[in-house]
């Protein structure tokens, strides 16, 4: 399998051959940042296009099909529209916080995005508490959302932001516990190690029952965490117009929009990494020829294929289920998901202790 570390090593030695160490490091930082932001923007565009198409197909429509072949240029056109729109300042709003909020949201999203192992040797942030770090930075986004709601000087924005706060804090618990369940199985918090340890079978197969339960709970909690339907009550188009980002326009709104889609990508990527082996090809112990053939498919394809499947499931949720009320939302978390999660964690510990996994 192609190892992307070859490329990164080559760039590194090339830069060090004519630059002092410090300068080479600086150039590498800039390059990585540039690649990351480009990938971020491109993935967001692809996700917006995918969302519109899939939503359309679920409603027996065709979706965007006028701008470019199959409407492929549509999200680009939308992005340009968003970029050239005027930024409007609200009267009596807290100007500083109002402007800071979208940046907090997008920074947390980009940081979480940077942790993901995209392919073999293609990891930006990889250290021994990687998944823990990812969980921590993705939670910073809630601060931005609360600030956005608070500083807008708009009742509905504030209601949306408060709902978002309650929802995210509740579901963070489920996400944390499901990730903990998988960390128990893998024995490591480092994302690269987690992926490597799935070489002899993905965790969803080796961890069988508790892994599957954890996966389902993770998907539900992840959907809630990204404020997507059926848990989109912080935005609730029909009740709160758009919730916390009602008063934003132009690129500030674009940041929220982008962060929302990329958070979905991050959730899907973490689900793929923890349960479905990340970039690791499908390996079945004993079937050596089969494993060899699977290795010929590049790891990037494996990763994005799995993530696309996860994203499809999340979109499937959104376009199937009606929106929950706030009390139903909290009841689902505290009365159902949390107890199941704790029992599931216990079960996983028992299975790992007695070596009942494959």
């Amino acid at each position, binding site marked *: 399998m192609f190892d992307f570390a070859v490329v990164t090593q080559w760039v590194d030695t090339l830069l060090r051959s004519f630059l002092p160490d410090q300068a080479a490091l600086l150039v590498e930082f800039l390059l990585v940042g540039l690649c990351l932001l480009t990938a971020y923007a491109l993935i967001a565009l692809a996700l917006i296009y995918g969302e519109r198409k*899939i939503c*359309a*197909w*679920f*409603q*027996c*429509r*065709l979706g965007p*099909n006028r701008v470019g072949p199959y409407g492929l240029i549509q999200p680009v056109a939308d992005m340009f529209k968003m970029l050239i729109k005027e930024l409007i300042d609200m009267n009596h709003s807290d100007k500083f916080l109002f402007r800071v909020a979208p940046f907090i949201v997008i920074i947390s999203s980009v940081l979480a995005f940077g942790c993901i192992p995209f392919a073999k040797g293609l990891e930006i942030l990889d250290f021994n508490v990687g998944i823990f770090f990812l969980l921590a930075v993705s939670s910073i986004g809630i601060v931005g959302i609360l600030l956005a709601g608070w500083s807008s000087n708009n009742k509905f924005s504030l209601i949306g932001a408060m709902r978002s706060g309650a929802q995210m804090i509740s579901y963070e618990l489920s996400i944390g516990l499901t990730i903990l369940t998988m960390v128990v199985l893998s024995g490591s918090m480092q994302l690269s190690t987690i992926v490597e340890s799935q070489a002899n079978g993905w965790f969803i197969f080796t961890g069988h029952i508790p892994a599957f339960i954890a996966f389902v709970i993770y998907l539900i909690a992840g959907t809630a965490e990204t404020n997507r339907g059926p848990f989109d009550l912080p935005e609730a188009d029909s009740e709160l117009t758009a919730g916390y980002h009602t008063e934003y326009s132009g690129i500030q709104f674009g940041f929220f929009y982008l962060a929302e889609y990329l958070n979905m990508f991050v959730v899907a990527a973490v689900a793929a990494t923890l349960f479905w082996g990340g970039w690791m090809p499908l390996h079945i112990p004993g079937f050596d020829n089969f494993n060899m053939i699977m290795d010929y498919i590049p790891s990037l394809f494996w990763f994005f294929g799995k993530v696309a499947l996860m994203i499809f499931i999340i979109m*499937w*949720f959104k*376009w*199937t*289920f009606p929106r929950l009320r706030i009390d139903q939302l909290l009841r689902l978390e505290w*009365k*159902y998901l949390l107890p199941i999660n704790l029992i599931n964690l216990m079960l996983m510990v028992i299975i790992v202790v007695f070596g009942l996994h494959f």
Partner: protein
Amino acid sequence: MNSIKEYFVSFYKGLKSLLIGMKVTLRIFFRKKTTECYPENRETLVIADRFRGTLTMPHDAEDNHKCIACGLCEIACPNGTIHVESVTEVNEETGKKKKVLTRYMYDHGSCMFCQMCVRACPHDAICFDNSFEHAVFTRAKLVKQLNKK
């Protein structure tokens, strides 16, 4: 004890109904799409016969129509879309007076396609056809004379 039972029953019921919902939407996902790509499919486009597109006055092969210029359609029209202009002719042999249609003016731009005029007509002289592409650059072009002579 009852509440514990209800807790588990409600959990499984909820899970089941959610899965049924997802099955339904997945079936619809793969269903044939109903959207029409309009300008591209103009050749094959099927418009229902009863679609009310334009008011027309059918003429036979000798360009005769059935209109007797009674003006009932003009009275029935809620928008004042129709103007019937007629002259009174005297039959020289019998000496009877008869209204003859000169111009039947129909302002498409103010028509709301309620079909009151067609229903009011005692001789079925007018009807709606299903042609619907009416875009023009000035409103004056929407005013049409329906009778040919």
